[in-house]
């Protein structure tokens, strides 16, 4: 059903991400391992959220996971259409490149909202690695999110621009050549409440070789 939705929204600015959910265990109890940084955000949507769920805008809208296709279709399209109608509240650009089994992302954020993004509202820039159309036993769609990481935003007032470095470790795709990096900015609307997302972007692959400086210090 989500695969079908992805096809229907293919000509619109919508990205689908499906995280680890493994039924292939001897005890029959599924395991689910979304990237920790994303789970910390998404679980704020509703107390006790687990096993199955779907969110847009970092949990501004969420559903605990429909069991019937018709319900899922109607609910998820409403969520997506609502999210599409929201204006972006940040400008975001990002580049990424491979570093061994990691991905390094540099993202530049301009805060166009009227909220100061900071550690007080758990604001962050997240990078999520996706391998489009890859089929894994551990994912229920062909839009697997392999891993993710985040950089905290310490202090970014309205109108200010900041640049953030994110390292996403432990990436083992079938094909490095098809990876997509989704970068997004979100914050917690109030302590204990759900998050909201200002903007997201698909990062551009870096086109130049990058050399990291090595500085040796004395012990």
């Amino acid at each position, binding site marked *: *059903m*989500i*695969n079908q*939705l992805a096809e229907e929204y293919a000509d*619109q600015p*919508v*990205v*689908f*991400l*499906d*995280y*680890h*959910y493994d039924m292939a265990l001897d005890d029959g109890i599924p395991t*689910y391992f*979304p990237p920790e940084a*994303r789970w910390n955000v*998404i679980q704020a949507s509703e107390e006790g959220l687990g*096993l*199955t*769920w*779907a*969110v*847009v805008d970092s949990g501004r809208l969420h559903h605990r*996971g429909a069991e*019937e*296709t018709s319900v*899922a279709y109607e609910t*998820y399209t409403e*969520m*997506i259409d609502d999210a*599409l109608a*929201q204006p*972006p509240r940040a*400008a*975001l650009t990002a*580049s990424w490149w491979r570093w061994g089994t990691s991905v*390094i992302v*540099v993202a530049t954020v*301009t805060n166009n909202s009227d909220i100061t993004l900071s550690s007080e509202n758990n604001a962050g820039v997240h990078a999520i690695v996706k391998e489009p159309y890859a089929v894994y036993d551990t994912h*229920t*769609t062909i839009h697997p999110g392999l891993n993710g990481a985040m950089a905290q935003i310490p202090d970014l007032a309205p109108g200010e621009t900041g*640049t953030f*470095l994110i390292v996403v470790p432990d990436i083992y795709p079938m094909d490095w050549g098809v990876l997509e990096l*989704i970068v*997004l900015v979100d914050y917690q609307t109030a302590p204990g409440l759900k998050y909201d*997302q200002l*903007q997201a*972007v698909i990062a*551009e*692959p*870096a*086109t*130049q*070789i*990058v*050399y*990291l*400086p090595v*500085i040796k*210090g004395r012990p």
Partner: protein
Amino acid sequence: MKSGKKLLALLVISLLATLMAGTSPTQSQAITDQPKLVVFESVGSIE
């Protein structure tokens, strides 16, 4: 202690400068009319 902080600051600045200099020039494209990109995230939903 002060020299340690200077070294750390130098390291951070150097790292960021190197990273920004080495990234794709396509990132400098105009972003003022950037549309909203919606991210739909799920776990274990009906496929």
